C-alpha cells in the first residue's frame, strides 16, 4: 500500500479513536448525572447497574431514576445532539463560522410563537402543549419565510444570513410590542420560557423529541461529503464536484431548522451549544464533516449534560437554567479552546 494511504488511514483511525473516547466519557457523564440530585447521591456503578438491568432498584429509586432524572438526561443528550448538528450543518453550508442554529431566525420565531400563546392565547394546539406547539410552528414559519426570501434574492450564502437578520428583527419587534402590553405575570412566564431549561420535559416529550432527531441525524451524515466540498471550496468548487449548491443549501437549512425548532420549542432558547460544539469538535477532528458531525453531536450532548448537571447541583435546591449555565461555563472554555488552537 502506498505510504501516503497508510498515513491517511492512521490519521483517521486516531480521530475515530478520539471520537469513541469522547462518546464513552459522555455516557459516563450521563451515568454520573443520573446519580446526582436532592434525594440521594448514587455512585456511577450503582446507576449503571440499575440502568442496564443488573440490579433491581427499589421503588423509590426506580421512580426517581426513570421518571425524574432519565427524561431530563435524555432530553439533554438529544437536545445537545440536535443543536450541535444543526450548528455544524449551518456553519458548513453557509460557509461562515459565526453562524449558530439561531441565526436563521428560529429563536425569534419560536419566541414570537410562545409570546402569542402566552399573551393572546392564540395557539395551534390546545392543552399542555400550547406554548410548545406554537413555538415550534412559528419557528418553522419564520425560517421558511427566510429561506424562500433568501433564495429569491440570490443563491449566495450571505443573502440567507442578511434576510435572516432582517426577519429576526421584525419578529423580535412584534414580540416586544406584545411584551409591552402584557401583564407582569405573562412577561415573567415568557422570560422563563426563553431562559432555556430542561425542567419542562417529562418522559413523553423526551421520547417524542428523540424519535425525529434519530430519524434526521443519518440524513446529516449522508450529506457530509457535499458539505465538505461546499465549506472547503465554495460554490464553484462544489459544482465541479457534483453538488448543486443552491438546492443543497436549501435542504440543509430546512433540516437544521427542523432540528433546532424541535428542541428549542421544548426547552426555550439555547443557542450557545450550537455555536460552540462544532468549533470544539473542529479542534479535535478538523473540518471533515464525516467525523465533524458525530463528534459535534457528542460534544453537544456532553456540554448540555455537564451544564445541566452543574446547574442542578451547584446551588441546590435552586436550579439554574441550562441555557444560562451553558453560557457561563461554556463561554470561557470555548475561548480557551480558540486561543489554544490559534497557538497550535
Amino acid at each position, binding site marked *: 500500500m502506498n505510504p501516503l494511504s497508510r498515513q491517511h488511514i492512521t490519521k483517521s483511525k486516531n480521530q475515530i479513536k478520539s471520537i469513541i473516547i469522547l462518546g464513552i466519557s459522555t455516557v459516563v457523564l450521563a451515568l454520573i448525572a443520573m446519580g446526582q440530585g436532592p434525594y440521594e447521591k448514587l455512585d456511577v456503578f450503582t446507576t449503571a447497574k440499575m440502568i442496564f438491568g443488573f440490579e433491581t432498584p427499589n421503588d423509590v429509586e426506580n421512580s426517581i431514576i426513570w421518571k425524574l432524572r432519565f427524561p431530563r438526561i435524555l432530553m439533554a443528550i438529544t437536545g445537545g445532539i440536535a443543536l450541535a448538528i444543526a450548528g455544524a450543518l449551518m456553519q458548513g453550508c453557509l460557509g461562515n463560522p459565526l453562524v449558530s442554529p439561531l441565526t436563521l431566525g428560529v429563536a425569534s420565531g419560536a419566541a414570537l410563537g410562545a409570546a402569542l400563546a402566552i399573551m393572546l392565547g392564540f395557539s395551534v*394546539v390546545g392543552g399542555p402543549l400550547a406554548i410548545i406547539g406554537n413555538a415550534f410552528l412559528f419557528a418553522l414559519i419564520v425560517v421558511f419565510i427566510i429561506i424562500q426570501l433568501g433564495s429569491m434574492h440570490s443563491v449566495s450564502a450571505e443573502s440567507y444570513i442578511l434576510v435572516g437578520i432582517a426577519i429576526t428583527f421584525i419578529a423580535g419587534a412584534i414580540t416586544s410590542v406584545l411584551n409591552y402590553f402584557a401583564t407582569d405575570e405573562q412577561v415573567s412566564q415568557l422570560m422563563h420560557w426563553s431562559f432555556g431549561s430542561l425542567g419542562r420535559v417529562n418522559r413523553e416529550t423526551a421520547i417524542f423529541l428523540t424519535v425525529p432527531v434519530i430519524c434526521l441525524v443519518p440524513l446529516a451524515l449522508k450529506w457530509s461529503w457535499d458539505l465538505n466540498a461546499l465549506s472547503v471550496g465554495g460554490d464553484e468548487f462544489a459544482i465541479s464536484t457534483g453538488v448543486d449548491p443552491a438546492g443543497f443549501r436549501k435542504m440543509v437549512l430546512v433540516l437544521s431548522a427542523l432540528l433546532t425548532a424541535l428542541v428549542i420549542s421544548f426547552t426555550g432558547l439555547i443557542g450557545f451549544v450550537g455555536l460552540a460544539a462544532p468549533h470544539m469538535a473542529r479542534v479535535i477532528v478538523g473540518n471533515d464533516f464525516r467525523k465533524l458531525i458525530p463528534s459535534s453531536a457528542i460534544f453537544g450532548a456532553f456540554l448540555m449534560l455537564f451544564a445541566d448537571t452543574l446547574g442542578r447541583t451547584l446551588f441546590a435546591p435552586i436550579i439554574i437554567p441550562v441555557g444560562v449555565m451553558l453560557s457561563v461555563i461554556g463561554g470561557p472554555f470555548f475561548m480557551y479552546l480558540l486561543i489554544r488552537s490559534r497557538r497550535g
Partner: protein
Amino acid sequence: MRMSDIMRLKNLKFGYPKKEVLKDINLTISNNELVCLLGVNGAGKSTLLKSILGILKIQSGEIWIDAEGANENSLKRIHAPRKHTDEEDDFLPNLTTVYGITLLLWGLIVTAVSESQSISSFAPAFLGLPLLVSGEMVKTPEADRKLWMYVATTFGILGSLGGIGFFIVMGEGLNYISSSMLMMFVTGSAYTAVCVRWFTAAKDASNDDNFDAMELAQYMSYVPQSVKSSFSIDVYDAIMLGRRPYIGWNISPMDREIVSKTIEFLNLEEFAFRKLNQLSGGERQRVIIGKAIAQSPRLFLLDEPTSDLDLKNQIQIMKKMKFLVSNSKEPKSALVAIHDINMAARFADRILLMSEGKIIADGTPREVLTPENIQKVFGVTADVVNSEEGDRFWVHVRDEVDGKTEDDNLFLEQINEDTEG
C-alpha cells in the same frame, strides 16, 4: 462529426441583461487534445468554461458531450432547458402549498378532537389558508423537489410512527397524546402522499439526455480561478473530494490509492497532511489541480491554472497536463484558459483566440500566434522568434501598449501637487 470528438458546442450564447458575453460560440474538441484559450480580460474565457460546466446557465445553444467515448450515438446533450409538461405545472405544489395544506389539516383535526372547541384551536387553519393561496402563485423551483423528497421521507416515517402510536393509545380515548399521535399520522401521510405524486410526475417530465450533477462531475472537472475557503481540511482530504462523484459514503482502497498517486504525481507529498489554509497561494492552486486530476475526468476545464505558480511549477504543471492528455489510456482532453502566450505556444495542441465573446482564430499554435492576430486581439506589437532547431518558437512582445506618457506625467504631477498642498 468525427468519431474521436469529446465535446461539441453549437451556437452557444450567454449574457447579462446589459452585456452579451458569449456570442455564438461553435467549437469541437477532439480526444487527446490540449486546447488553450487566449484573450484579453473580459473576452469571455472564464464564462465559456463556466457555461460548459453549468455554473452559468446558457441562454441558447447546445452542448453535446461524449460520455462513453464510443461513437457518435453516445453523444449526449447537457444543460438543455428542462422540458415542463402541462400536467406537472398543474399539479406540482411548492413548499408554501404543502405547508398550507398541512396547517389546514392540522387545524381541522385539532378542532375536531379537542375537548374545548375554541377559536384558538382552529388557528393553524387560519395560518394555512393564506399560505395555500400564496403557494399557488409561486412556481416550483427545481431544488424544492429534492428537498421535499428528504423532508417528506422523514415525515413519512414520523407519520407511520404516529399511526402506530395512535392505535396503541386509542383505547384511552381522545386526549392530547392520542390527538398528537393522530396529528403526526395525518401530517406525515399528507407529506408522503404529496411527495409520491410529485416524483411520478417529475419522472415523466425528466429529460433522459440530461445528466445529473454527479454524473457530469465524473465526466469533467474544473479548476476555478480562485477557491473561497471558509473552513479548511487536510490537503489529502481536499484531493479526496475529487473522488466524491464515485464515492457513496465510504472511501474505498482504490480511491485512496488514486489520491495518493495523484499527490505523488504532482509532488505534493511534503504538505499532504497540512491544512489547506496553511499553504501559499501557489501550493493551494496545485492542490486544486490535484483534486481535478483525482477526479479522473475525460475533460479538464482549467481557468488560469498557472496564475499563482512560480516559473518552475508553471512549466511542471503544464507538462503534467500535457502528459495526461496525450498519454492516458482512456481519451482525455483539456480546455485551458491562460494568459501566458509562450506557455500556450509551447504546450498547446491547438489554440483558440477569443475576443469580445467570439472565437476569432482556431488552429495550431503556429497558425494562430501570428504577429497580425496578436496585434488584433491584444493590441501589442510582437515578433515570432524561432528556436535554432526550429521545433519551437517564442512570441516576443516588442513594446507593451501604445504609450500615453504625457498623460501619465500629468497624473503624477497632479498627485504630487495634491500631496504637497
